[in-house]
């Protein structure tokens, strides 16, 4: 006997529960939008908003307050200070230091004065507002381009209604992942953008696998109702869908736990995206295909 998570003869009525799924998704999206509104927009990282991040590691116990105190009466006075691992802190400011001596005057001298040499500046990132604006533009283009590319590819390989289903599912995944990022108040950085685009590529995979099966089954039983065929196809591929999501989830989880603070936000967005992407392939993509079919059927009836 081989090991089976999902029994071969399984027949869950996915299509029958579409209504609940749609309501569930809408609630998730509304919560996400609510969080974005509550936080007054996304929390853009310096990649998009411009500004500076300085990561400092201390060799002894230091509190964020002590650091804030030491930076008083410098240009970093109003910066936010966030713990980033043991005795390690991120100092962020909206200021972008294009002047070469600024860092020395505003960080090194006050820190040395307060903590002598017991610290090490491990990372400095400064993004000017011009570059930030460029990145913003590029980010929007990247997401739209990847959507379009998927739409074209799936539209070419399948029929338009399938492609439409896939794309709506991608919108859904991106919206919910952004919502989750907003709820956790994670900074929206280029890494998060990369995670979103990876999720777009990943989520369409599951959708393609299911749609491939739907197409195959439509050919085998052309007379059967689409709803039944979709249900059958989801059930047939369910085991694979869950297994693959599990393996990817495991790797992302390893990344989240062991990959270090620098990559943790990225891994978080991926974790959310992998789960949501799997769910949306099963429910959202197929729902749209079915809705589209019903819409066309009723149109055809009216024409007759």
């Amino acid at each position, binding site marked *: 006997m081989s090991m089976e998570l999902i029994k071969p003869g399984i027949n869950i009525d996915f299509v029958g529960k579409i209504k609940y799924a749609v309501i569930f998704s809408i609630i998730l999206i509304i919560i996400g939008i609510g969080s974005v509104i509550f936080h007054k927009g996304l929390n853009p990282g310096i990649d998009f908003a411009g500004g500076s991040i300085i990561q400092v590691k201390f060799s002894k116990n230091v509190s964020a307050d002590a650091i804030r105190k030491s930076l008083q009466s410098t240009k970093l006075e109003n910066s936010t200070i966030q713990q980033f691992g043991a005795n390690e802190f991120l100092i962020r400011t909206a200021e972008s230091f294009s002047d070469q001596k600024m860092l020395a005057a505003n960080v090194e001298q006050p820190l040395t004065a307060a903590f002598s040499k017991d610290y090490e500046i491990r990372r400095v990132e400064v993004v*000017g507002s011009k570059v930030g604006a460029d990145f913003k533009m590029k980010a929007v283009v990247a997401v739209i*381009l990847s959507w379009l590319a998927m739409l074209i590819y799936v539209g070419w390989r399948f029929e338009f209604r399938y492609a439409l289903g896939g794309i709506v599912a991608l919108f859904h995944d991106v919206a919910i992942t952004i919502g989750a990022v907003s709820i956790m108040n994670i900074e929206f950085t280029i890494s998060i953008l990369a995670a979103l685009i990876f999720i777009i590529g990943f989520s369409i995979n599951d959708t393609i696998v299911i749609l491939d099966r739907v197409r195959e089954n439509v050919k085998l039983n052309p007379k059967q109702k689409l709803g039944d065929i979709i249900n059958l196809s989801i059930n047939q591929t369910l085991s694979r869908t869950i297994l693959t999501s599990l393996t990817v989830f495991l790797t992302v989880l390893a990344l989240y736990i062991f990959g270090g603070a620098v990559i943790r936000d990225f891994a978080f967005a991926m974790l959310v995206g992998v789960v949501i992407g799997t769910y949306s392939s099963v429910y959202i993509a197929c729902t749209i295909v079915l809705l589209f079919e019903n819409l066309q059927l009723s149109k055809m009836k009216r024409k007759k």
Partner: protein
Amino acid sequence: MIKSLRIRIAITAAICLAALYFLVPTFIPQLPSPWNSYFPKEKIHLGLDLQGGMHLVLEVDAEKALESMIERTSVDLKESLMEGKVRFRKIEKATGATISLELTESSGKPALDKILNEQYSDLEIASSTPRDSGQLVVLKIKDKRAIELKKLTIEHSLETIRNRVDQFGVAEPEIIPEGDNRILIQLPGIKDPERAKNLIGKTALLEFKIVDDEASLDEALRGNIPDGDIIAYGSRTDRSTGQKGSVPYLLKSKSLLTGASLETAKVQISDRYGEPNVSIKFNSQGATDFERITGENVRRRLAIVLDGVVHSAPVIQEKISGGQAQITGSFTMDEARDLAIVLRAGALPAPVNILEERTVGPSLGSDSINQGIMATIIGSLLVTIFMVIYYRLSGAVADLAVVINIFLILAVLAALRATLTLPGIAGMLLTIGVAVDANILIFERVREELRTGKTPRLALDTGYNRAFITIIDTHITGIVASLVLYFLGTGPIKGFAVTTIIGLIASLFTAIFVTRVIFDYVTLNLNIKKLSI
């Protein structure tokens, strides 16, 4: 699919051996001597986020270069007009890189046209409006020439920065133009980022100007600056108190000589205080000019101005021949050394602004590598163990494919001299998750076929064939998404895109081709009744 199993085994073996070939320098850093000549030298290139270093994006203010050129041209034009006996009133550089002048006679226009035609082919008349008996004329640089000049400015800046970085001594720097007016600089392993930034970003325009001792400095400071003069400041450190103050100078605005006339510059220790200074040597034309200038201005003060700051203004005692001079000031040894470098490499033709800076210290870089490797090992262990538990021996075959996949990714990175970044490691780990997907698809299909009572051989064939198209589809969409990221991302994210693309292509090979070879070998050569799947 190629029919002959033997050929397929040969292809698999050849690709694996090629991968090992490219990975030898990465895993065995010091090959013994007869061997090292047979293998490539390139190790896997680590991104700045892993090995530490500085990433800079500079913007060249080419408009400024245009403006300073207009400024110089307006001075020359003034002289040409005077020589040509054209009567004019007030000639000056106006806003937006233009020159405005007022011709006082109606005959002035044709005369100006003639001078422009003969000597200033870059200039054209932007507008002319009648005023009194003459005309108010605005001149500008021809559009085509202006574009050319801006392009030259960028190229020249690039060249200058390359020179400076080379002389500073950074291993494997990357300095490339980006977009219209930006320069991307990557300096791996840099120890003192502040100093490097100073060195790269300094305009280093060295000018020699005469101090105007005839006019009153106090009067000028009150706002009555004589025509053709400017005020510049120098810093002075009080030797007893160590306090720094600034000293104003009234200078003739015309530069008599610039750093462009230098042959070389080097650090010297002055005898008096043991302080470093920078000794400069002019080229032959510069030396002649310097001799003439010093000869004409004996008893006056010559200001040495670097980027608008007066470093010193010694009195010219006598005509100086030989073309040697010294720049003194209170330099530290490093400052003097860096000044010598920038003077040797030449001035930037235009000021540069730092648009983006990302510096990662070496300790953070090595932490990131360790954490990335840790996550990769644990992630792949989880997946491989899961596959063996779930699919038994078939799972082990898929795991072998994953291991080959990882080696292929690293080998291609080494062979293409692509860069491995922290997101790149994440991409590799994710590819592992996705790569087993292809095998899961196949195995699930094979199980389905086995359930219908097919023989292992037939079930495998059907399983592979049915899953094939789906696998192609999922891989292509993944590659397309990564391509979008590649074209729009920056350094580390590009690394993510590159490893993902390589990983997906490798996975097509390992998951479909390699595992099939193993299964075919086993089912054809061993009499298998039951598949361990």
